[in-house]
């Protein structure tokens, strides 16, 4: 009888422990998921911000490159201002062959 009593105690305590551990595990997993979601969200936001800044940066770089190109070595003498780039053809001009896709008078 005594043995049975101790067995019941052990099984009972074991069950509670297992159940508590299970709850803890579930809780930890949910927390982990929440943290993970939070990370993803943050990461996504960061990515978006990064992409936006990249686009802005790209745009700025492109404009800077455009304004600083040394075109005077080519077919044109180039003057820059904030509002317009003026390219004047040099005497000896090397024509560009027509592209496959072209915009022209319509």
């Amino acid at each position, binding site marked *: 009888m005594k043995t049975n009593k101790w067995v019941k105690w052990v099984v009972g305590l074991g069950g509670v422990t297992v159940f508590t551990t299970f709850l803890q595990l579930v809780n930890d997993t949910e927390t982990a998921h929440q943290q993970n979601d939070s990370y993803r969200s943050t990461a996504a936001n960061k990515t978006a911000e990064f992409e936006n800044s990249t686009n802005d940066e790209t745009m700025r770089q492109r404009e800077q490159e455009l304004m600083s190109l040394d075109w005077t070595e080519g077919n044109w003498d180039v003057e820059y201002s904030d*509002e*317009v780039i003026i*390219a004047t053809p040099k005497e000896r001009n090397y024509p*560009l062959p027509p*592209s496959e*896709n*072209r915009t*022209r008078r*319509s």
Partner: protein
Amino acid sequence: MNEKQSLIFNGMGTTIKAEVMACKPSLDWKELIQTWFATFESICSRFRRDSELTKLNQSPVAKLIPIHPVLYDVLQLAFQYAMKTEFYFNPFVGTILKNMGYEQPFQKRRAFHEYKENENGYRVPSNKSLSFFPDQKAVMKHINEEIDLGGIGKGWSVDKAYRLLRDQGVHQGVIDAGGDMVIWGDSSRKIGVANPFAENEDIAQFVISAGAVATSNILYRSWNIKGRTFHHIINGQTGKNPESDVVQATVLASHVSEAEVIAKILCMLPAQEGIQWLKKHFPKAACIIVNKNGQLLITPSISRYVERLVI
């Protein structure tokens, strides 16, 4: 399935080229856009006797006139641009063009007749020249001048063709109607700007993956009557051919219709003035102007559209 397909056909008085990455085998995109351009021309050409536009031009003033929804939409946009540009862009130049002898498609012209000055003088239209009734898709004219959609129609129809294809899942392509073009997708393309002084050469080239481009030029579609040269671009504020040092204007914008309207206006103004005008009225657009001396005037805003520029 992603397959590169292309199509070339004649329409709208020019050659129309399209190249797309078609993703649905069931989609007959060629039929779709050929039908679209043919439909648009049958509705909006002022050279067709049976077009909706011709019927509108022949209708009396101060009368409610129901019109085809396509004509309604393009007319509404044209009128919006007319007001935004203080009628530099003016769709009411049909009568003037007729008086200058431009009565038939340029490709079919034989000889241009004598130039007839407008006996009543020229009056700039106003925002009250045309009323719109959206519920009925109807308009009411308040002036007699005929409407010509030559400065916007092609661009508008290219924009619409692009939307038709995009809505069918075509995620990449280019549509080019005589140099007015839309490019979309992720793939970069090299686009040449024809040299107005030597059509078989490019005067500039740029690399672009998405955007709208249109070019206007005063040398093409020009004609001579008794020693006097005329061309198809009319300054809507004067009713006359503009006197400008600009020979050609290429515009990059968010829509082809907008690029086309701006390109026309840049051919009306002195080059430097045009640059200022563009910055003030369409700051997000960009241009490459060629003047009579062969100089290029390029706005730095071109960096919004192009990845690379070669001159």
